[in-house]
């Protein structure tokens, strides 16, 4: 025995759990691609000019159990208080079956955005339920399937009103009873779009001539007022109206739709989603039918499949950034699907009666407390649902101190006022403690025997039925809910079924140890505006993470506020813009974007008020340096920046990225490196070290936050020191380390803080060497797939030594010209093999982009390659005439069990060839729940609510 105890400690265990291929498999794969070692492959793939010398590999990996222990020690520095702060965030009971079967279940959280609807019917139905909840409670006609947070939803409402209203006005009215973080984000977004914002008391609304107005219901002052007349006054002057709402209050209250509102938005957080120090939560935006074509975000709609059965899909995608680029309705891509589904299931589980009980209890406890306060001589708002703003005068600080000593958090509304919000979790015992802080004595009997009344005018009581669809009236026992959730889950392909080879999406492992801390109470039950002395754990976590991410990217500091990659882009462009202006450079508003860029780049630039100038790519797919130099020079006086993705969206390490950065810098521009492909750079070539001034990091790609079926995500930005003073701040809780608090881009100071633990765990358990090896293996896996598929499909772009980066594009166009079989047919046929399709037609139409990530082992890569090669053989049979172009397993894919079991089988291929094209499929068959979906029908006949139940019957 030569080993010592150190070798048995297993601190580096996680690397081998996370990285798919072991040493023997790596050898085999290297032999296949004709490389002698991993380091030779990397030397031949990554340009020498950007390789980082003297890599600091000092951070050792930590074992899974030790990392959890270390994180628990950090977590314990947070204090879980009883939160009565309100302000858009309320404590809630996450129903245990939803916690366990959804939030903690990889069948849900590892799924991708449902671009391939046939294998996404489960989460599409869950999202449609969410839309139905929002439609019912707001009284509006159509809802989207979530937005990032309430404040950005407000900003989206503003731009929706602006583009939907022909009135020649650039003035927006925002009522001062809106949440301060909402007003802050509205102002940030308005500034660069040349929208003027006036914030004033709602009573003064009629003094302004505006294109739109934003009100809140109930207001931050707790008041519950009928907005019907105000909305009518707005319409009188041809202004549109948006109302910020609280979903739980709408269970009892007259809906804003009934009052004539044009747009209604808010957060669904208190429908069973933890506060999480600010997120993630699902916001929503609902509107009238007339504005549906212009609404931002994903919308789920009902269409039909090739067999005529109802089938769900994302509707109206052409409005979105990936197609409309700078003309898109918004730059948003990632939303909050997982949290929207949680909120939807919360409504499914409780049903209308359960929700009425919860809302009724909140209203009654609030009323009981209000009466106690009034009896003691305190004045409060005269109408209320759950929030009381108590005039406390000189007692204010004393009361706050008493409360804090008992770990009860109130909100100091002003020097002489305290705001208290009652939540679903508030009990009569809590009310007794609350009252005691005000020197009021309540007894359990006082409370429980009081009449259940509420503090708003009876005319505002909701009269119409809500949640009448059977889905909200059928699954109230845990057994039923568990089975309903399972039925939906197994309709979908997630990472627990097979690899998801989506190019540019980095569908790597989301390890259980990374996910476990997300639902710890010390992270979940923390209000984003909790006092600093209760959130020491979060502050420590955030600072450590800033240091870890700075090191991984080569940037000087990080802003953790942006909630998605798109929002990171926006925050980065904002920092660039502020930097130029701080130097007196007011003309710089040209954003250079290579033609190969993702559509989000131009959409973000448009949102930041910049003008997009496209830079050409050469025939190898690289940025055309001559064209770049010409355009940069032409715009020497007004060049703001370039947005370049690296490695390029073509999956290649461009040799000349340093020259690209130098050219832009020479003409006074800044370099934004889009971090979408960071998974090829960590530990090898940090973008901050080769010329980037700012990048966003998609934590939901490179750093293991799961995709959640379309969100959450996180898009922190790394910046060089000269841009650091221009990062987003926060108006309620100052962002740590920022001397000046600039306008926020998100509702919460650190975005979706609670999921940052995932990234912390990943980096901790991998260590520096593990992060580098992950990059190496991501590149190895991609090159292996490119090599195996290259004999059957042309690989579109490679670097100078014929290698690809961490993904590869195969070109289907020549094959389509010869055979008539399209990239879409291949994508759908893969479903019969149990695989999610690669990225289709991005960045080049008629191609498939494959990114295997480092987490897939050789066996899985071979299964995928075998499937693709078998499909190629099938195409050959179409080319040779064995099968007709009209009837073959490709154009008829995917095949449902129902179609295969029909008595009639009139196809030119067998049922076995349809369902089991390779022998191993039998043992692990995935059955697509619907046939190919008719996209045209769905968009011509938009229907975005839960369909009548009989539609699903045969």
């Amino acid at each position, binding site marked *: 025995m030569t080993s010592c105890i150190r070798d048995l400690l297993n601190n580096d265990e996680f690397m081998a759990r996370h990285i798919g291929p072991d040493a023997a498999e790596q050898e085999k794969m290297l032999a296949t691609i004709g490389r002698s070692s991993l380091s030779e492959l990397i030397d031949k793939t990554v340009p020498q000019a950007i390789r980082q010398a003297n890599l600091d590999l000092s951070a050792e990996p930590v074992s899974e159990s030790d990392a959890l222990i270390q994180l628990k020690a950090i977590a314990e520095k947070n204090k879980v208080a009883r939160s009565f702060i309100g302000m858009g965030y309320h404590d809630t009971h996450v129903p245990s079956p939803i916690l366990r079967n959804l939030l903690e279940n990889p069948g849900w959280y590892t799924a991708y955005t449902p671009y391939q609807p046939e294998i996404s019917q489960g989460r599409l139905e869950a999202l449609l339920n969410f839309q139905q909840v929002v439609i019912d409670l707001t009284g509006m006609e159509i809802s989207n399937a979530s937005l990032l947070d309430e404040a950005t939803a407000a900003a989206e409402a503003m731009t929706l009103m602006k583009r939907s209203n*022909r009135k020649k006005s650039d003035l927006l009215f925002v009522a001062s009873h809106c949440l301060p973080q909402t007003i802050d984000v509205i102002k940030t977004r308005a500034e660069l779009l040349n929208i003027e914002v006036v914030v004033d008391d709602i009573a003064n609304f009629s003094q302004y001539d505006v294109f739109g107005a934003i009100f809140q219901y109930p207001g931050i002052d707790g008041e519950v007022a009928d907005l019907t007349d105000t909305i009518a006054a707005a319409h009188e002057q041809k202004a549109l109206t948006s109302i910020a709402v609280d979903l739980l209050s709408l269970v009892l209250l007259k809906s804003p739709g009934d009052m004539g509102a044009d747009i209604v938005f808010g957060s669904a957080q208190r429908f069973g989603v933890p506060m999480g120090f600010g997120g993630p939560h699902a916001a929503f935006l609902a509107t009238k039918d007339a504005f549906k*074509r212009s609404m931002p975000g994903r919308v789920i709609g009902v269409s039909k499949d090739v067999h005529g059965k109802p089938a769900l899909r994302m509707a109206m*995608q*052409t*409005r979105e950034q990936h*197609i409309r680029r700078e003309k898109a309705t918004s730059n948003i891509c990632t939303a909050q699907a997982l949290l929207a589904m949680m909120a939807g299931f919360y409504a499914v589980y409780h049903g209308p009666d359960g929700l009425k009980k919860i809302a009724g209890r909140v209203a009654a406890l609030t009323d009981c407390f209000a009466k106690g306060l009034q009896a003691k001589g305190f004045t409060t708002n005269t109408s209320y649902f759950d929030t009381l703003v108590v005039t406390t005068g000189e007692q204010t600080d004393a009361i706050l101190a008493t409360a804090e000593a008992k770990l009860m958090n109130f909100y100091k509304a002003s020097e002489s006022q305290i705001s208290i919000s009652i939540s679903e979790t508030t009990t009569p015992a809590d009310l007794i403690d609350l009252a005691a802080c005000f020197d009021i004595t309540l007894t359990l009997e006082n409370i429980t025997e009081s009449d259940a009344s509420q503090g708003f005018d009876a005319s505002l009581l909701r009269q119409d039925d809500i949640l009448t669809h059977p889905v909200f009236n059928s699954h109230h026992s845990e057994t039923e809910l568990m089975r309903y959730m399972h039925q939906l889950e197994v309709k979908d392909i997630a990472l627990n079924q097979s690899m998801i080879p989506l190019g540019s999406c980095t569908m790597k492992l989301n390890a259980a140890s990374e996910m476990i801390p997300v639902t710890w109470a010390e992270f979940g039950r923390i209000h984003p505006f909790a006092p600093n002395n209760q959130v020491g754990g979060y502050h420590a976590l955030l600072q450590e993470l800033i240091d870890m991410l700075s090191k991984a990217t080569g940037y000087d500091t990080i802003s953790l506020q942006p909630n998605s990659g798109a929002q990171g882009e926006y925050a980065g462009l904002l920092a660039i813009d502020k930097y130029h202006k701080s130097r007196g450079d007011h003309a710089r508003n040209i954003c250079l974007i290579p033609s190969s860029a993702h559509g989000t780049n131009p959409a973000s630039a448009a949102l930041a008020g910049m003008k997009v100038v496209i830079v050409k790519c050469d025939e190898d797919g690289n940025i055309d340096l001559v064209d770049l130099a010409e355009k940069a020079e032409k715009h020497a006086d007004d060049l703001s920046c370039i947005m370049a993705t690296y490695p390029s969206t073509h999956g290649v390490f461009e040799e000349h990225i340093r020259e690209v950065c130098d050219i832009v810098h020479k003409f006074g521009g800044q370099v934004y490196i889009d971090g979408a492909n960071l998974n090829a750079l960590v530990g090898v070539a940090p973008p901050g070290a080769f010329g980037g001034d700012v990048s966003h990091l998609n934590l939901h790609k490179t750093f293991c936050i799961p995709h959640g079926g379309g969100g959450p995500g996180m898009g922190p930005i790394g910046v060089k020191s000269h841009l650091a003073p221009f990062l987003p701040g926060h108006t309620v809780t100052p962002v740590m380390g920022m001397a000046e608090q600039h306008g926020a881009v998100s509702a919460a100071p650190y975005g979706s803080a609670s999921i940052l633990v995932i990234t912390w765990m990943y980096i901790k358990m991998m260590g520096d060497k593990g992060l580098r090896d992950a990059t190496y293996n991501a590149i190895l896996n991609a090159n292996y797939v490119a090599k195996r598929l290259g004999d059957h499909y042309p690989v579109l772009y490679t670097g100078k030594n014929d290698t690809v980066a961490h993904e590869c594009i195969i070109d289907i166009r020549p094959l389509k010209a010869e055979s008539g079989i399209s990239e879409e047919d291949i994508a759908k046929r893969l479903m019969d093999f149990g695989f999610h399709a690669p990225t289709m037609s991005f960045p080049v139409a008629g191609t498939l982009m494959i990114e295997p990530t480092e987490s897939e082992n050789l066996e899985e890569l071979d299964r995928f390659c075998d499937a693709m090669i078998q499909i190629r053989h099938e195409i050959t049979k179409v080319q040779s005439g064995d099968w007709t172009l009209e009837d073959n397993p490709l154009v008829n894919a995917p095949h449902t069990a129902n179609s295969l079991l029909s008595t009639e089988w009139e196809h030119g291929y067998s049922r076995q060839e349809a369902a089991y094209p390779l022998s191993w499929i039998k043992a692990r068959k995935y059955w697509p729940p619907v046939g190919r979906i008719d*996209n*045209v029908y769905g*968009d*011509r006949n938009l229907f975005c609510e839960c369909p009548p139940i009989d539609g699903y019957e045969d």
Partner: protein
Amino acid sequence: MSTIPENLKYADSHEWVLDNGDGTVTIGITDHAQDLLGDVVYVELPEVGAEVTAKEQFSLVESVKAASDIYAPVNGEITEVNEALDDAPELINESPFEGAWIAKVKLSDSADLDKLLDATGYADSIE
């Protein structure tokens, strides 16, 4: 090969213009354009009475794979829009030159018509 009627004028951004001979024109998109777009699912119609400016967007046609701005080929005022497209956007695919006209415009200057392409010129432009 797409159809290009001889009696129409064309803009290189793929709109066709029919001179109604009474100071108004009818505008639609060409067969070539609808072919590029694929199955049309929605047409955003301008408002009657709105002023349009040549080469500026006045309508939008959405298919399942693209959304394309439609540019006014002439200057003038919208006098009529084809509301049939609200219910049947597929007319754009089925009969781009007849049933699927988008709007009628009262010309502010009939000389605008001289700036447009004829059928041969348009055919050359899309080759």
